[in-house]
């Protein structure tokens, strides 16, 4: 897969695909979409890059160390966001009961902790897709 046209078209298209994935993650609480779908789109952009440019350059873009860290701490991030409620004297994963300012309805910064939790979940779903794909590609047939 060392085609010239394929490489140029991918170089033109992949930034916009990643932008769309980040848009779906960040706007998960004001428009249809959500963290799972957006994370999969971001991961698929990296998968397309790896498929077209080869495994070595894909691994140089997203090293194994980065995916390991994101994978572990992305899962922990959800728990950290839940502990905010406990530190404020409310139940685990509390949002409004913990006294967090919810902001204006429909704005990007609305929803208190929901946007932060969605960002964490989206990034770690993207890292999950990259990890699965790279682990299967490195296996020699």
């Amino acid at each position, binding site marked *: 897969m060392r085609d010239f046209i394929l490489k140029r078209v991918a170089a033109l298209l992949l930034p916009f695909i990643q932008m769309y994935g980040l848009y779906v993650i960040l706007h*998960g*609480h004001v428009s249809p979409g959500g963290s799972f779908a957006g994370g999969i789109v971001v991961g698929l952009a990296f998968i397309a890059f790896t498929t077209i440019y080869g495994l070595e350059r894909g691994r140089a873009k997203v090293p194994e160390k980065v995916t390991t860290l994101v994978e572990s701490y992305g899962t922990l991030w959800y728990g950290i966001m839940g502990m905010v409620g406990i530190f404020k004297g409310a139940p685990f*994963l509390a949002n409004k009961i913990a006294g967090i300012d*919810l*902001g204006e309805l429909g704005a990007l910064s609305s929803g208190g902790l929901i946007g932060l939790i969605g960002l964490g979940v989206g990034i770690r*779903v993207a890292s999950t897709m990259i*990890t*699965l794909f790279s682990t299967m590609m490195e296996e020699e047939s």
Partner: protein
Amino acid sequence: MKLGTLAMLLIFLLAAYVVLVAVAELPPYGMVGNPSHNQVSQRYIENAWEETGVLNMITAIVLDYRAYDTMFETIVLFTAVLAVIITLKTTEREGGGK
């Protein structure tokens, strides 16, 4: 080969009959008397905007009302990735921590 084709056609007709009958019995979308329009969904529709401050009601339910569900869902994904890495990763690491 002939028997397989016949069996496939039979299964297709049976499944198509069941699905079409079940779909024709579905209640109309958005009517007041539907079984899905009970007090649970009514409470969420009335209070979700004030209680979560989120415009998309599905995100409000998934990440706020049912936050424990989503948390363990991410843990399930983490476990799946862990199983794939343990099963398929055969190369040694550079640090030599074998």
